[in-house]
């Protein structure tokens, strides 16, 4: 098998050389000149400019690129297969990366864990995974933001904008991270007016523009007049909502430009806070933290500036709720709370602040959400 492979490789090598005059590779030289720099690898599951999840990370990476002593290497559209192991390994071996940020959930287990065991001197920090001290290697870790609070504020804004008292949520898949957002959005709206309902549509895919546009249209046809979402790239949803003349709350990144009339506000990631902290520790030679979480208070998450769709009363209400959250100790999920099948999911007297681990395995839709997860 080996001779066969090297033969085919050899022929293409010769073809390559025949097609050009071989000179010293300038691309390689640039790598060696930077031996002192901290090389940081970023891996994205989708396109860097998706107006959504991946763009939020890439925007932070772009800021890091300008920092002295830091070299950023990036790769986009890496699938959640063994390809990502090879990408990490290639960044480590060929680019000299000593800190790697695989930013998609599915990269964690088994790919990142395998690579971490193979390269104990390289630090791996993963976005969204649940790092556990007794289970996972010490050179790995995870970070994530409590963006549910942002969706709660989105819900308050939506409640002030809606006339039909019907809101819509377009979601990819019924997984805990998504369910927290749907429920927070619905609870935010209900905190203003308990009669408000939130209709949820699952598209089944993280990125499927035609289906997302269809979902937005079906929601608008039902008289729903505010939508928000949890898919990788919300661009099409925002644009379709704007064309239908309904309001929209953003998610992942600032989408105000896409819906100049109907944008209310949005829940955005602010990853630069997290990345700067990791880089500072790495440059100072300090051990990197393994489990990092933060919300609005910690500036891991931020809100888009208010759009023209949100009236003064709405702005005041969102400001007030935000001030309350920033004081600390605020809990969206507090008892008594029923799911939409009538079961008590949070008993009276009990409350889960955003940091509660219980929320990371949420498997219900709260009362007032129309839809089901199975």
């Amino acid at each position, binding site marked *: 098998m080996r001779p066969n492979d090297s033969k085919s490789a050899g022929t293409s090598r010769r073809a390559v050389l025949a097609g050009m005059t071989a000179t010293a590779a300038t691309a390689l030289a640039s790598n060696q000149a930077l031996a002192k720099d901290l090389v940081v690898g970023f891996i994205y599951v989708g*396109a860097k*400019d*998706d*107006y959504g999840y991946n763009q939020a990370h890439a925007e932070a990476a772009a800021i890091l690129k300008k920092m002295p002593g830091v070299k950023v290497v990036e790769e986009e559209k890496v699938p959640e297969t063994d390809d990502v192991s090879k990408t990490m390994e290639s960044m480590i071996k060929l680019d000299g990366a000593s800190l790697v940020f695989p930013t998609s959930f599915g990269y964690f287990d088994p790919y990142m864990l395998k690579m971490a065991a193979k390269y104990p001197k390289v630090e791996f920090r993963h976005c969204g995974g649940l790092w556990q001290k007794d289970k996972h290697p010490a050179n790995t870790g995870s970070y994530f933001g409590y963006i549910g609070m942002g969706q709660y504020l989105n819900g308050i804004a939506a409640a002030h904008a809606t006339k039909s008292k019907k809101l819509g949520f377009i979601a990819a898949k019924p997984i805990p991270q998504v369910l927290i957002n749907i429920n927070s959005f619905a609870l935010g709206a209900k905190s203003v007016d308990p009669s408000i309902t939130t*209709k*949820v*549509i*699952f*598209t*089944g895919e993280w*990125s*499927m*523009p*035609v*289906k*997302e*546009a*269809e*979902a937005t*249209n*079906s*929601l*608008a*046809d*039902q008289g729903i007049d505010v939508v928000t979402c949890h898919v990788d*790239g919300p*661009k*099409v949803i925002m*644009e*379709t909502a704007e*064309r*239908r003349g309904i309001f929209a709350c953003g998610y992942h990144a600032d989408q105000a*430009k*896409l819906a100049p009339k109907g944008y209310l506000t949005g829940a955005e990631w602010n990853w630069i806070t997290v990345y700067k902290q990791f880089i500072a520790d790495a440059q100072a030679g300090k051990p990197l933290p393994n489990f990092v979480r933060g919300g609005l208070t910690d500036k891991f998450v931020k809100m888009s500036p208010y759009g023209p769709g949100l009236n003064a009363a709405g702005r005041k209400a969102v400001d007030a709720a935000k001030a309350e959250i920033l004081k600390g100790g605020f809990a969206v999920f507090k008892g008594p709370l029923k799911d939409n099948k009538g079961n008590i999911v949070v008993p009276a007297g009990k409350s889960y602040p955003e940091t509660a681990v219980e929320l990371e395995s949420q498997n219900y839709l709260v009362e007032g959400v*129309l*839809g*089901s997860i*199975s």
Partner: protein
Amino acid sequence: MIDTVALAMLGGSLRVSTPFLFVSLGECLTEKAGRINLGNEGVLVLGAMVAYATSYETGNPWAGIAAAAIAGLLLGGLHGAICSLTRVNDVAMGIALMLAGTGTAFFFGKPYVQPSAPLLPGIPLGFWSDSPQLRNALNVCPLFFLGLLAAFVMHWGFRSTRMGLRIRIVGDSQDAALALGLPINRTRLFATAAGSALAGIGGAFLSLYYPGSWNEGLSSGQGLMAVALVVFARWNPINCIYASLLFGAAGALGPSLQTVGVTWGYYLFYAAPYVVTLTVLILTARGGTALRGMPGQLSIGR
């Protein structure tokens, strides 16, 4: 509840069917001349990108449509020209073209993912109704009517013009075409290029009307499915209209069922258009014999 779903399916079929209509008409034209072009998926994606970029740069969406048609014409012409060479397999070349078309579109389309280009305006056919839902469902893209027109022109052309007859003879029997001294390769080149121009317009619909945005996930296989729709339509342009509308309506079933509370099994409902297609194919197939209406020289029909 039923009427809600019905309305959603009507709106959905008017919104979603247009790209299927254009690509299936284009494929129909190509196949009538005895060639198959699986590369129309690549043409569709390239058309979408070129249309969006041109509309953004010139500020005129109609210029975008023209550019998409030209891009399709060129890519289709390439397919037609290469397949004119002896021994070159048109099915394989179509797959290569699909790869090249999408690759080129993604490569040059990067700078146009973020900007917002001017889109095509819809024709408000629902102005008489008080229902905003119906008004929206009947806000129809001018390209849809252009597609209908193209279907009727093609239907008439195949039956009643010299050119149409020539295409049909070349597609049905190479021997007859040779005997009559018809330029086989030139006819097929024309049919492939023109067919791909139509597919390019189908792509322009995606980026300039619905969903009206350019990104790499824009096409979900519309160009490939069109090949199936042509078989479904028995190589008849008028039937292409029905096939596309039916396919579009079935595609709207998934989201609209969820809005009315049917939340179980959404993956299966999303697959409804494919199940419908397969069922029709099975029901209309004649065991062992060639399909009625199929051009005799088609490489997939042996």
